[in-house]
């Protein structure tokens, strides 16, 4: 069954994930994206190394990296694109999310 991927990954994000996985001391299957209730707009993403797939995880394999999506996060991530951004003072991953209706002032949490 060919389902369209829940989300997509940019080249920059894929390269960065690969580099980070290579640097890590312990072997990892990929990274897991979750959401939790925290921050000033109520929800925020978590991005962590994943050692194994949990039974309900959504799996996205693209550009040589494995992204596991926590079932709770799926609804927030449908249609998003994971990108990696490098700026002068900071760098990191970002999800471009068409479902999002608002972010808090600092952008660290969001609501839908």
């Amino acid at each position, binding site marked *: 069954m060919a389902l369209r991927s829940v989300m997509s990954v940019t080249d920059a994000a894929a390269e960065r994930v690969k580099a980070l996985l290579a640097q890590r001391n312990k072997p990892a299957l990929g990274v897991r994206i979750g959401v939790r209730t925290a921050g000033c707009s109520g929800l925020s993403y978590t991005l962590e190394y994943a050692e194994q797939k949990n039974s309900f995880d959504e799996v996205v394999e693209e550009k040589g990296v494995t992204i596991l999506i926590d079932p709770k996060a799926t609804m927030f991530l449908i249609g998003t694109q994971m990108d990696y*951004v490098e700026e002068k*003072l900071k760098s990191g991953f970002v999800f471009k999310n068409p479902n999002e209706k608002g972010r808090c002032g600092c952008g660290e949490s969001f609501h839908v």
Partner: protein
Amino acid sequence: MVLLDIHEPGETPVPHAATEAAVGIDLGTTNSLVAYAVDGKPEVLRNIHGEGLVPSVVAYLDDGILVGYPAKERQFDASDRVVSSIKRLMGRGIEDVKKIAGTLPYTIEPGSEGMVRLAIAGRRVSPVEVSAEILKTLKSRAEKRLEKSVARAVITVPAYFDDAARTATKDAARLAGLHVLRLVNEPTAAALAYGLDKGVEGLYAIYDLGGGTFDVSILRLEKGVFQVLATGGHAALGGDDFDHLIAERFLAERGETKPSLTLVKSALNAARTAKERLSTDHEGRWDIDAAGRLSTHNFDRVALETLIEPLIEHTIDIARHVIEDAKLAANEIKGVVLVGGATRMPIVRRMVAGLFGREPLSDIDPDEVVALGAALQAEALTSGSNTLLLDVTPLSLGLETMGGVVERVIERNTPIPVAHAQEFTTYQDGQTAMLIHVVQGEREMVDQCRSLARFVLRGIPSLVAGAARIKVTFALDADGILTVSAREELTGIEQRVEVRPSYGLAPEDMEAMLRSAMEHAREDVETRLLTESRVEGQRGLLALKSALRADGEILTPIERRTIENAMAGMERALSSTDRDMIEGWIEKLDAETLFFAERRMDRGMKTALEGLAIESLESKLQAAATTGSADAR
């Protein structure tokens, strides 16, 4: 836009716990800057044009308030609405300002309680409010650049700023919605930037000649310790004064006796340009086109230096005095660092080199070094660091005694924080009240020092003259801000009065200003209260976890479950933004773990008692063995 990192499983930090940015701000007389440090690397935050400096200029126009370059551009076509050099008025009373009133290009009026107000385009604004506008601009620049909310800052002040000026600076930050993590002295901040970036060690002097203030500090830099040994300066001496001297000369050349405000501003502008250009050029011509007439002025470096040499000589004198205070000789100092735009002038470099017998350092841009140091300290205060900064108070503090003589309680160059107490007594039989007059300064007589506060201590028991014992305690915190308390000790009747030094800004005024700035301030206050509740909730939770690890075995499984349920409730509350809920759980957690705390204390006491029993037995045996040994006490 939030940028995420990949974390180890379960270790993703909670947003806002530590990721909101704390910045360093140099709030200068002429220019201000904001900087931010990551991993010990500070950087000045610039606008899209790459400009780091924000001119400390505010324009009050009908359609809004402008700050920085846009405000500076309006100083000719709207000269009566543009305020500059406001720092010179911070914490000043109307009496202090009379001396310099003529040199300031705006109208000053007395406000309530001797406080200074500026009359600008029909409104009356205080120096605190003007400074707050500059701080708001810096805050929003930082937020734009960092894409984070910025609610906390380290703000630098001249080392020689007195208590009133420091308090005024803190108030301005509050109005701008910034929580001041620490006020850091400008030369100390500069030393921090040099010490950490260039790795200098040993005895260093910092010579800081800014737009309106002069400071000199001697520091010992050693293995991450920045110890200020002595500091001194002049609260109203800087590049502005050079501009005034040059402008006066230009105006005299034009034959002006009663120049208009616009003309004065034009002359000052020409003077400033001339001063800056003559740091590199040897001579030049400057035009003043104002009040319907163009005049041209030839001016060269020799003339400039002749004009300002007495002022520089004065700074060298002060520096000499500070070296003596540090109990050092000039040749023991390993290096001297130049800070402030005015140190670009060749005459300053020459005279400083002459005093110390060595070429001064200016590897780090003298306009930016203070803000960079402040940013480093902001990072250290929020993310932790191994650097230790030990500063001193620049001015002695004392009380008025009989005959207007000052009795010093804290000497200048004492390390802060500090608390000293002094005892005083009554001079009349039956005296039941005493006026306590707090002054700051080095002179022997009260009227030559800065008056900080007066308050009356009442309820002294009626006794013969000299019998009452009134203990007055002066405490300076790490920001150099003073609290004075007094109490009568002898009879056990205690009277305690806490004063915040007043520089004329009544608490009601502050309230009103805060309320008028409420639009965004309410948000800031809410955020701050939420942060405080979270810190407290988290502290309680962590303390309880430690206690469970240490003494968990004294609980029955049921008791343990009760506590764990309460902890889970607290965790949930902490991940929300509901302050009432967090506060509720703080109380609940407290109540539900009280029995556990009591049981732990009981057990701790028993253990200590057993230990003591053995110790006491041993000490008795020992005492028996060494009977007769001399005890000095």
